[in-house]
């Protein structure tokens, strides 16, 4: 199978086998993000595969300092993805883990080379569409005023400021209003939000205030984890903030 597909690519048919790495919380709590992405890639004519496990990239353990435990998940990720043609992650944060932090995690280990190769072929969803597939217009229709929240890892580790905006610009009926200040952290930060809930909540309050100032109907992001923090706080305080992942906007018709 693999050989045939490769041959097709060489013959000029741009069919790709895209391996989707679905993060744990997207799997459990935001399945519609993954489903939207499958639909988008299939509509573009590509084939999608999803490895059955592992369900996590190991970032919680890595960020907490438990690198041995992080490696026991990350090694499994390397094994599962090493033969993939290309890997797409619907999260800037987990994407940065695979693309940037695995190299630190595996530096000086026998897996360093594999991690390097995985980093090269792994892409965050929006940057994959724009920079790898060269697609910005997916024919989506989302007649709402939205604002965009940059997840910090996508923004600063992956330098991913433009692709989501290029994609949103082509959505019918959509009006993008930027926040002020535009690039402030929402306060999620993985285990940080559980270890220092008071600080994380205060940061979330600042973020929600910026969102409300835009008077947008929705806040869009490439990171469901940030949206979980923003929505969690907004719902509790009964603020009129609605969150949605970029993939769902792009799949809307």
């Amino acid at each position, binding site marked *: 199978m693999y050989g045939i597909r490769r041959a097709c690519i060489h013959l000029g048919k741009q069919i790709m086998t895209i391996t989707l790495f679905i993060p744990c919380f997207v799997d459990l709590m935001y*399945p519609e993000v993954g489903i939207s992405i499958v639909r988008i890639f299939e509509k573009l004519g590509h084939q999608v595969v999803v490895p059955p496990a592992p*369900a*996590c990239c*190991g970032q919680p353990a890595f960020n907490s300092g*438990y690198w041995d435990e992080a490696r*026991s998940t990350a090694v499994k990720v390397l094994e599962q993805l090493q033969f993939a043609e290309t890997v797409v992650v619907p999260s800037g944060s987990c994407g940065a883990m695979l693309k940037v932090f695995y190299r630190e995690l595996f530096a000086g280990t026998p897996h360093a080379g594999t991690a390097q190769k995985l980093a090269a072929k792994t892409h965050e969803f929006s940057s994959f569409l724009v920079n790898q597939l060269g697609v910005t217009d997916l024919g989506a229709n989302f007649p709402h005023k939205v604002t965009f929240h940059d997840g910090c890892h996508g923004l600063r580790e992956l330098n991913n400021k433009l692709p989501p905006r290029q994609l949103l610009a082509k959505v019918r009926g959509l009006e993008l209003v930027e926040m002020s200040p535009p690039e*402030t952290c929402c306060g999620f930060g993985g285990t*940080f939000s559980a270890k220092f809930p008071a600080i994380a909540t205060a940061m979330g309050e600042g973020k929600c205030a910026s969102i409300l100032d835009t008077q947008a109907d929705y806040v869009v992001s490439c990171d469901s984890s940030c949206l979980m923090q923003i929505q969690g706080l907004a719902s509790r305080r009964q603020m009129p903030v609605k969150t949605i992942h970029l993939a769902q906007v792009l799949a809307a018709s």
Partner: protein
Amino acid sequence: MTAPAAQFKADAGRLSADLRQRGIIQTAMGKYEVVRDQRKAGFQDWQGARELAARTKFQAVNHLGQYLEDLASKLEARGTKVHWAGTGAQAREIILAILREKQARVVVKSKSMTSEEIHLNGALEGAGYEVVESDLGEFIMQLRGEPPYHLVFPSMHLTRGEIRDLFAEKLHDAPSDNPEDLTMVARRVLRQKYLQADIGITGANFAIAETGMISITENEGNARLTAALPKTMITLVGIEKILPRLADLGLFLPMLAVMGAGQLLTGYNTLYGGPRQPGEPDGPEEFHVVFLDNQRTALLADAEQRDALGCIRCGACLNVCPIFPNVGGHTYGTTYGGPIGSVITPHLRGLAEWKHLSDASSLCGACSETCPVKIELHHHLLQNRRNGAQAKPSWFQKTAFKIFAAVANNARWWSLVTKLARVGQVFQKPVKGTALDPASVWTKTRDLPPVAKESFREWWKGRK
């Protein structure tokens, strides 16, 4: 939990709910960002400037021994007395010995975070000397009996009304809350002290190896008076303040001014090369330079984090940090606050006691992005976390991550956990947000989304 960690958590919890305090800091920082960006635009190639600054500082740090020798011999050649202090205690003793020898009574100081680091004021006052801070912000904080709130803006958290009340109480002179009036009050007090002082103590922003000079940057002219009026000048310098060449100041002075305070250049930039030379009309009769290690060489030995010694103490990382405005400057409990403080304090004062500061970050990376000398601050926070977990692992966390890894690595177990999570959240509902809720750290202030009726993997399996 160590005492500093408990203190941090308690103070952070209290202050992050203090909307007034948050408002003051956010307003101040908002203005800073606007002027900083205007000044940054004055650089032809800001990223190129950062690259050059990082390389220059890294070169200085990598050849620290040689540069320090050059600097010391050049200073000595013009009659400066050079002292070497391995620890804060040694530095305090060296300075006290000079004060005793000079039979000093009054010491006037200009702003120096390094002197804060070694708790110099307390030591001098304890030995019976009168110590006066001459930087306006530091003067205010000294009247309050508190350490500086911020590396560059020591009293930024105070309103002018609070400063008027402070002056009224301590100086019995506070005509209004007009900043100019208040500055004039401080000026009247300080002018007397400059004239009375036997000793002037300063810090240093840069130390130039090539020419043997100390570079001091300030906005009020107080450091010049501190250096010029008393007969003896003492400068306390962290050994990492080295710059190889005089020409490097052409980059570093504007960079420090832009990132520190959003200025094109700081008001006064002065180079001190020694005591008064024969034929010169003014300047101190004696000039002492005290070089301080205080664990900087321990950081130098850490190949991963050595670049943190390149820090020019501009405070830019603190200014962009989303944690800082929510917890305030005193909550850190350290001399150096914000991201750079969280990175270096474990090296300077012990990992076990200060690693919690590295945990208290969302790792957003705004600090590394802004740092003019390109210190990988948030990556160093991760390394501190790793070093802390290796030195003293929490068995609860270690076990939890082990179990999580085993579950996440196995498709069948993951599927089972998905089903269990759905059942679990039914029981969680009635206790949501209370102490009985296992997810209370989250649910106390935020809602948690439900586990989907059909997870992505379940959907994917059903589809095939």
